[in-house]
């Protein structure tokens, strides 16, 4: 039965289910309300106030992520008052720390000075490492905000680079708390939380130790949740740029959970891995192996040519030589000792299609049922 509850958003009469927030109703009806701190699957905090909307009869703007829809509510998501509120928040964020994309304007002298200063702090020659993949940048562009009208606040904490996987760049942190929720509510690893107070606020592990000396298990959920450049995969930082990447959706090759992930490919190399959001079985979650264990793909140690043992040594050979040799030897062993003298191990590592072909080969060609794999090992 269709829902009886009715709400009006931007003049459109819409239905909602009881318990839904304004944000959920809007998104379900393809009305875009911008968010920064909102993380699907976690408790809405309303902390960033980017999603504020105007509700008729309310004496102030309300965060859409944390306000439940009510019958006959009338909502405006882009009224002048809403837009102005968002612009102020965005200006404050853009003026804090090292948000050095080109969106951040200024006259040419101050722009250059700022960029040079950030690049020096960053040890880089390029603009922000998440340029083109940053919600703050997207929203600053959308609302035409630069940050130059606000006084600049300097970054308070140095960058943390001492673990192999994640760079924590506090100069680009906007304290939205998505990483905290990703860690504590999505993956439930409970490794990080808000620390210190007000202007000194920082995302910390207990005792403010580096991640590698904490309970962090490097699942990277926080990196995936970070809307800005505060948490970036170490190996992809200043390497992976969204306009140069090809994203290919596939299934993880490690354990049997079958996490859905994107391989981000540049120049025939995997440069980073992200989870596919909103899709079972993992709904965007990955573990350290799935997210960071991809180096083997492009390893120099990969086998690139068939090898055949000659005079006791494995030596490179052509496919024809190698396969003819295998065919001839399997044939002669089968003839001399019967099919049961041959065993085939298919693999829990290769595809269904390949396992099918392997067992078909064992049974139809070698005529043996001695085909197994390492399920037991």
């Amino acid at each position, binding site marked *: 039965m269709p829902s009886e509850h009715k709400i009006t958003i931007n003049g459109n009469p819409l239905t909602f289910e009881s318990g839904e927030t304004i944000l959920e109703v809007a998104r379900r009806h393809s009305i875009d309300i911008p968010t920064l701190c909102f993380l699907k699957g976690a408790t809405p905090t309303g902390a960033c106030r980017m999603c504020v909307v105007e509700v008729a009869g309310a004496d102030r703007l309300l965060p859409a992520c944390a306000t439940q829809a009510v019958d006959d509510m009338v909502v405006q998501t882009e009224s002048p008052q809403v837009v102005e509120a968002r612009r102020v928040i965005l200006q404050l964020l853009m003026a804090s720390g090292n948000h050095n994309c080109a969106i951040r304007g200024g006259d040419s002298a101050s722009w250059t000075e700022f960029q040079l200063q950030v690049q020096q702090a960053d040890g880089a020659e390029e603009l922000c490492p998440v340029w083109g993949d940053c919600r703050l940048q997207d929203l600053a562009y959308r609302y035409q905000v630069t940050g130059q009208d606000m006084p600049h606040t300097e970054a308070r904490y140095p960058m943390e680079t001492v673990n192999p996987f994640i760079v924590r760049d506090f100069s680009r942190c906007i304290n939205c708390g998505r990483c905290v929720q990703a860690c504590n509510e999505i993956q439930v690893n409970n490794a990080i939380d808000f620390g210190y107070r007000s202007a000194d606020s920082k995302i910390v592990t207990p005792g403010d130790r580096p991640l590698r000396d904490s309970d962090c298990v490097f699942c990277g959920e926080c990196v995936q949740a970070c809307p800005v450049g505060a948490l970036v995969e170490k190996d992809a930082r200043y390497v992976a740029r969204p306009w140069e990447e090809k994203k290919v959706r596939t299934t993880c090759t490690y354990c049997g959970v079958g996490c859905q992930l994107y391989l981000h*490919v540049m120049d025939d190399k995997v440069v980073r891995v992200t989870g596919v959001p909103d899709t079972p079985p993992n709904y965007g979650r990955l573990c350290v192996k799935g997210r960071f264990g991809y180096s083997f793909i492009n390893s120099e140690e990969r086998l690139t040519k068939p090898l055949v043992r000659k005079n006791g040594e494995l030596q490179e050979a052509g496919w024809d030589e190698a396969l003819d040799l295998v065919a001839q030897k399997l044939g002669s062993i089968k003839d001399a000792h019967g099919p049961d003298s041959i065993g085939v191990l298919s693999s829990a590592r290769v595809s269904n299609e390949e396992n099918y072909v392997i067992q078909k080969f064992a049974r139809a060609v070698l005529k043996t049922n001695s085909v*197994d794999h*390492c399920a037991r090992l």
Partner: protein
Amino acid sequence: MTNTIGCIEKADVILITGSNTTENHPVISSYVKRAVTFKGARLIVVDPRRIKIADFANLWLRPNLGTDVAWLNGMMHVIIEEELYAKEYVEKRTVGFDELRRTVEKYTPDYVEAITGIPGERLVEAARMYAGAKAASILYCMGITQHTTGTDNVKSLANLAMLCGNLGIEGGGVNPLRGQNNVQGACDMGGLPDVYTGYQKVVDPEARKKMEEAWGVENLPDQPGLKVTEMLPRAHEGELKALYIVGENPLVSDPDLNHAEASLKNLDLLVVQDIFLTETARIADVVLPSACFAEKDGTFSNTERRVQRIRKALDPPGEAREDWQIICDLSGRMGYSMSYADASEIMDEIARLTPSYAGISYDRIDKVGLHWPCPTPEHPGTPILHVDMFASGKGVFYGIDWIAPAESTDEEYPLYLTTGRVLYQYHTGTMTMKSEGLVDRAPECFVEISPQDAKAYGLQDGDMVRIASRRGSIEARISVSEKAVNGTVFIPFHYAKAAANRLTNAALDPIAKIPEFKVCAVRLAKVA
């Protein structure tokens, strides 16, 4: 899994046993932790180590190694004695209850405590908690299966679940967590000695005839072949002459490696098809380079029976080729032509020959995978098994007695060893050890030992020890850890240089032929 991964968050009680979930299935562990932290589920962990997931548990029971049937029978004893079982479910949907009742009668909490070391009152508490749930999910892994009584252990879990009406309902189930990406698929596809695809038996003349017609061959072998754990002994005896291995590394993963190595070296022909020159490939006669998952199209079937796509993102390096292409090429050279335009065409052939995959095609699983059984192109897939009835009609209870592990400690080998994986490495390390970051986090083998045992042996964290079993010995560093319990050490099996499987026992479960990786007796001494 009888149920889905998402289903875990629907359970009132979750029982985890023999699964170090946070390290081996981290994403599944997040479902468990969310259920416990935010949805009010209660968690029972039964494991010989004080693993991380035990921090989230309402109850952690610590059984002696290899005593699973005993504590499971003990829980069922309590549940039957206190009449907490699902009487209507048992009556309508199962057979064999009387046999079960007779068998578990003697497994009183005191009797079970004597075998397992689990205090009787804790066992009673766990039994009441499990039986009191509307829906209780059992998650298990190799800690249950890698025993000489692996089959008995799994059947006992099924007994417990059926007894409380937990099979065929949302949030319930008996759920094995598969350790390898496509171990489910390899089984589904007939990568087993007794079945074709979809578990159609090779001894069934109808199934054989169907495959003979489809494949255009005659006289398919009508008897089950050898299991992997039987192949190596046959090679050792000289009866198995040739072994063709695709994507496996038995020289690290098999039990009693010294014996395994001698067996492989005794072959007339060893062919290894892999992406790296593994320990096993190094002793092969021919090594064939293959494409990895990122370099091919196809499907994997995950632990919840969901068939999902893999897609080609890169070209394989050098002359490496996809595994199916290599096999088809070889087959042609042996006089049998196998030719497919692409992987999708192979899936279509699989669907034609496999009732449980009949409704699966690449078009249907483009965005979201389907759970088999999926018998027709219109069928939505089957997320939960055994909903209205069991595949074989009624659920069968088996009365199973506890049998001790194959090896026990003695004066010469006074400690128990159990093996497993760590978070940052995977199986034989072929892939993970290529990642500097993962190696940085878990660089080398270690022997995890309790603080008390370390003190008794005069050992400190980082000390090098020689650890020996009746089959071999290795050297590794001591890691003093609260995870370990007195009398039992743990070693991860990933590391070829200090391979735990030089120590493990190749004694097999009589039915599944799975080795007893989880229990053997060892001694250790500090290396000067």
